[in-house]
């Protein structure tokens, strides 16, 4: 599973609240970072959290690939 945060990000912080295990709002709130997913780490919980964050982001700034998202 791959997760990217695009330039559309408005730093609403919704992803951080939906999936704190994946997303972090950097100090100062200027940037959202996403942690690397190690090979074999794609647990059902993490995939679900990533897809939840992808759909909840108001700006559509999160792209999840390689999960059961239909995104390839």
């Amino acid at each position, binding site marked *: 599973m791959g997760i990217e945060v*695009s*330039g559309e990000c408005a*730093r609403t912080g919704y992803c951080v609240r939906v999936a704190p295990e994946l997303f972090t709002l950097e100090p100062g709130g200027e940037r959202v970072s996403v942690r690397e997913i190690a090979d074999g780490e794609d647990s059902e919980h993490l995939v679900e959290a990533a897809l939840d964050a992808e*759909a*909840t982001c*108001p700006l559509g700034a999160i792209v999840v690939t390689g999960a059961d*998202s*239909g995104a390839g």
Partner: protein
Amino acid sequence: MSSSTIALIDRLDDAMHVLRGGSFVQILPESGHGAEYTAALVHGSVLHLDGEAHFERRRLLSLLFRRKVLVDYEHTVLVPALERISRDIGRIATGDPSGDEERDGGGLRLDLLQLCREAFIDLFSRLVGFEGLETRESRAAMLADFTDYEIGFRAKYIADPATAVERALASKDRILARHFDEPWQRRALVFESGEIDEALPDDLIAILLRNREHYLQWGDDASWQEAMLFMVASIGSTGNAICHAVADLLDWSGEDPDRLQQLEDPALLSRAFRDSVRLHQTNHLLRTATKDSTLPSGMTVSAGAIVAVNRAAVNRELESRSDAPDRRFAPDRTLEEGLRDIGLSFGDGPHSCIGRTMVLGDRGTRREGQDEDGLEGLAVATLLHLFRTGVRRIPDDPPTRVSEMAREMWARFPVIMGPREHRDRT
């Protein structure tokens, strides 16, 4: 600045500060400026919430907007609806006597606005769970009521908002009685029996029932207000935007053979829709300041003040910050790095339109090899069908707008549609 005045925001950086920052909330009904009228239609919907409540609501609704769900909507609902309409047009235009459409040369005279709305009914019904919209008659009756509802929904921009909202509430009653109440009651019985699958909500009614306590915080009306908001967005706003895009593209192409050919290129249509939708957002986004703020331009706003984000002005700023500053509509425009081509067309910040990916698709973020699973988006899918079906204007029957509305809203958009070989483009 006192709380009785409105601060007009017409710069992109100031607008982003207002819409993205935590110092402004949606205008309250008691603040006036038309919000006191439209509250009856939107008070309990996601449009009206802020802060924690807004986050909770967006998260509930996000189940309807997962990418996999959107791809399914597009492939199994939207595209078949568009293909059905294209088939009907081709069949009638080539001689089938059924229907009451007026023929013109090799095509049919149609109202593009109504055609788009009809095409989007299936998608809306699937999204929300409305029923009883299978026949042509039921769709026509619903769309007649919908027009009144949409005008009331946008009552901030008309001279007599009280009457418009009154008519909207009456039309809402008819729409709900015909298409919402029965599936709601039937599903409520199933839900109360505990038989409904908790893991797979598949439309808005299921979400409303499953989260009844959440919605009741805003009263009994919140459920239908949410459903009707979805209707205005998916049928009204999108139909209006498609008409604008068709007009812009026909003006842009003229008789240029190369450009005419590009009208069936999805990549061009995507860029064109994004530039067109930027041009035609003529309403202001109203917010209330919750604390004293200084905007990037240096403008100060006091707690309690109302600000109006002038979307038209902000979106036009993008032109001057592009390689095509002298052209209003330019699908080949390249912007300064870091700017979004759609500007504030779908809002910005937490209140960005929840359906934006459904409309815009994922062409901008799609990777190599993903085209087969791609989400084309409602806009491009519709434009592609329209141009393949040979849509063109009628010179002696120009489109008209809703006269009492201070923002751009089409009343009718006459076009001729028919097989390309008969096309007499104007």
